């Protein structure tokens, strides 16, 4: 069971906007528990789709200079409808700012005309070596792995 909550990046305006899609399938194990007779993508994983989309805008803009890109603050994350197996969600994130160590975004997820989720959030980005120089190799490993994932998600 992989923890990647977008399937493909469909468009990028560097440092500004990114759209991605996520297909929801019964093959996703957690749907068996959420919920047993009413499988829907958990709300926090919708947020994760937005976070991942935004993270790629950061990594691209900063040229993968930071290994760690994490959620710092999420506000007013509103769940408006359900995402069920068979549906495809389109995420759009808009960057308000992207700096070296912090960025802020607004994002929405829609399925056709129906809005599923909307959020405002900030990310923080850093290298483990910032705190502990011995972690520089680990930073390198993470970045290499994320670059591979980038190739999977985005074809220019």
């Amino acid at each position: 069971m992989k923890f990647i909550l977008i399937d493909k990046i469909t468009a990028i305006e560097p440092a500004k906007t990114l759209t991605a899609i996520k297909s929801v399938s019964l093959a996703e194990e957690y749907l068996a528990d959420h919920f047993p007779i009413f499988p829907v993508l958990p709300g926090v994983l919708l947020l994760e789709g937005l976070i991942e989309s935004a993270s790629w805008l950061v990594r691209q803009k900063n040229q993968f200079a930071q290994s760690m890109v994490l959620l710092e603050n999420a506000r007013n994350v509103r769940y408006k409808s359900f995402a069920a197996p068979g549906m495809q969600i389109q995420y759009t994130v808009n960057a308000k700012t992207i700096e070296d160590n912090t960025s802020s975004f607004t994002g929405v997820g829609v399925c056709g005309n129906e809005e599923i989720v909307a959020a405002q959030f900030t990310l923080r980005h850093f290298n483990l070596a910032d705190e502990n120089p011995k972690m520089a190799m680990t930073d390198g490993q993470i970045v290499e792995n994320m670059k591979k994932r980038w190739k999977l998600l985005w074809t220019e």
Partner: protein
Amino acid sequence: MRWIWIDKFLEFESGKRAVALKNVTLAEEHLHDHFPGFPIMPECLMIEAMAQTAGILVGEARQFQEKVILAKIKNAVFYHYVQPGDTITLHAEIESISPEAASTIGQIKRGDTLIAQISLMFSHVDKNLAGKQFPQENFVFTDMFHSLLSGFMEQKAAGGKG
């Protein structure tokens, strides 16, 4: 991957507050994708752990009559990341509750270290149909959640240590 993000209850005051615990372990597959080379608990799953703690608290306050669903994350702030081997505690408190909804505030801690502060809004979907169709029975509070809570209650009754 099971969709249960808390391991046990440590404290439970019906209608008021609850404390749950989660162990973070390398056995959790998803950690290996987040991130490859440096596994940490995804922030969104920390939000879910809080949502489950607070959701059970809210559901129990109304005898699990309604389906309690996370409707809004008012605010979630994270101060530190959490790694395998860590144990986090989720401290949730009901701020407001009505027949239609509930609002909760909470903190996630690792020992004494504050990891996150999270405030949530839950909707009692039977009262807020909003034109969507749902199955009749309470699919939200599955056996998994009931056994977490009853496990805690039994231990308390037996005078055991949480």
